[in-house]
């Protein structure tokens, strides 16, 4: 690997094994996310995509292997401290605070110290990206439609000033027109300088959007490469694209 590529690595997983109780969910998973790219992590249900994100955000501790962010070993960094590094996850199912308003949800996103000082600018940025969140600022987050909830969840994560934004199935259960809108937004966020790690079941669209992609199968990394190449991969086509 040429040095420039090694230098541009923002996040690296090295031979990560993770378990839920006795059940092994990840087997020696290694990959890197490069600075400023969109990396898609695809695979079937229970392939270990969400577990991978939870290992990176610290909600699941790996039993073996390392997670390196910008060269720092995150092994001893507790989950709530990882936002200080700029690692921010939008969890699957959005997980908003349902009995709090849209505005309160967004303000909570700016909880990390380094995000709090720039709270007002971040809020302007999020409202420009999703004008509907400004209109519904006083509404309870739990009463928003599915698409609006996803926007609120992404907006809340952006309030934390992420360097690495991890999105877990952001289009799950959304109408096709909204799916396009979310993908478009992810492209905008990335163009504004945020590195994106995207977990998607919507494989074709994810591969069209991403620069590179990794494929997980039963907890093992089986394919990795430029997203365009993977779109043409015979194995992937058969397994996920129904061709």
């Amino acid at each position: 690997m040429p040095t420039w590529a090694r230098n541009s690595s923002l996040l690296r997983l090295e031979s990560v094994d993770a378990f839920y109780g006795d059940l092994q969910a990840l087997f020696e998973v290694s990959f890197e996310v490069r600075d400023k790219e969109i990396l898609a992590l695809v695979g079937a249900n229970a392939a270990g995509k969400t577990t991978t994100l939870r290992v990176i955000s610290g909600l699941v501790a790996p039993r073996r292997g390392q997670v390196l962010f910008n060269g720092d070993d995150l092994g001893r960094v507790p989950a709530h401290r990882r936002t200080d590094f700029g690692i921010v996850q939008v969890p699957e199912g959005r997980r908003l605070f349902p009995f709090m308003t849209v505005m309160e949800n967004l303000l909570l996103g700016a909880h990390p110290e380094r995000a709090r000082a720039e709270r007002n600018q971040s809020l302007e940025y999020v409202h420009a990206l999703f004008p509907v969140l400004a209109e519904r600022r006083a509404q309870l987050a739990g009463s928003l439609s599915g698409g609006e909830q996803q926007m609120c969840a992404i907006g809340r994560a952006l309030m934390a000033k992420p360097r690495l934004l991890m999105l877990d199935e952001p289009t799950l259960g959304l109408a096709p027109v909204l799916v396009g809108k979310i993908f478009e937004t992810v492209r905008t966020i990335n163009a504004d300088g945020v590195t994106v790690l995207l977990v998607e079941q919507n494989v074709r669209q994810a591969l069209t959007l991403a620069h590179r992609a990794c494929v997980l199968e039963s907890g093992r990394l089986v394919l990795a490469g430029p997203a365009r190449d993977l779109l043409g991969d015979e194995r992937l086509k058969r397994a996920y694209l129904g061709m």
Partner: protein
Amino acid sequence: MDPARLLGPAQIDALAQLGVSTILLGGIYALIAVGLTLIFGIMRVVNFAHGEFLMLGMYLAFWSFTLYGLDPYFVLFVSIPLFFLVGLLTYALVMRGVITASHNAQIFTTVGLSTALQNVALVAWTGDFRFVRPWHSSVVLRIAGTAFNLAQVVAFAIAVALTVALFAFMKWTHTGRVMRATAQDRDAATLMGIATDRVYRLTWAIGIACVGAAGVLVAPLYSVYPTAGLQFVLLSYVVVVLGGLGDMVGALLGSLIVAAVEVVGSYFFGTAWKEVLYFVLFIAVLVFRPAGLFGQRGAEMLGA
């Protein structure tokens, strides 16, 4: 002793008196229940040792009055930081270990803490009934045909002020938002960079500070003994359930309802009936409106 008995002989209009007694007694119950409401609302822990922290507050008032002649209203200001520290200590020693455990483990733990504290008080201070009677506990005010006790009015005013302050704190400060967020989704809060263990510790300490202060305030109105907390803690559960399990303003209204049932029920049927009446109400609310009388559907699970 039933505070309604402290009124002394007077020509009073029964209906107005029932109203005034309800409001004042409700204030005392709200004062006791507000810490329990906070702890339940944010931590989803039913603190069965709540009454024992109240009892410790009462003893603090008793000893500072008896040994040093300190007025309970002065001791009140000392008791808040003191019980905040007691809260931090009990959290670190006891609650921290069970905060992620099952509800059963938490119940057994707080019941254990309750019994331990009762017996510590029994060993240290014997089972004697003690009384704190500063000058203001015997001042009876008579206004518009009703009579009431000055200490009750002060307790009521402080209960309302405390409830409003906690409500405002929870609603409009960043720390309050962080506490509610932790109650609604702990993992999501962690992903926002919130140290949830610290949130629970702070919640517990504030709750204990509230009930400790309540103990100091009610000491002049009741007698002080090792199990003095029991009579209040049961009705605190009724209040918390009526108010919508964790809802601060709901708990204030719930306190007034419990007080009304007690005052009106005692007037018409005799005091022996009061606990029957409000526990029938308690069960009825749990069966028919589990989110509480004023609660939002589903909120009982999420600490809105």
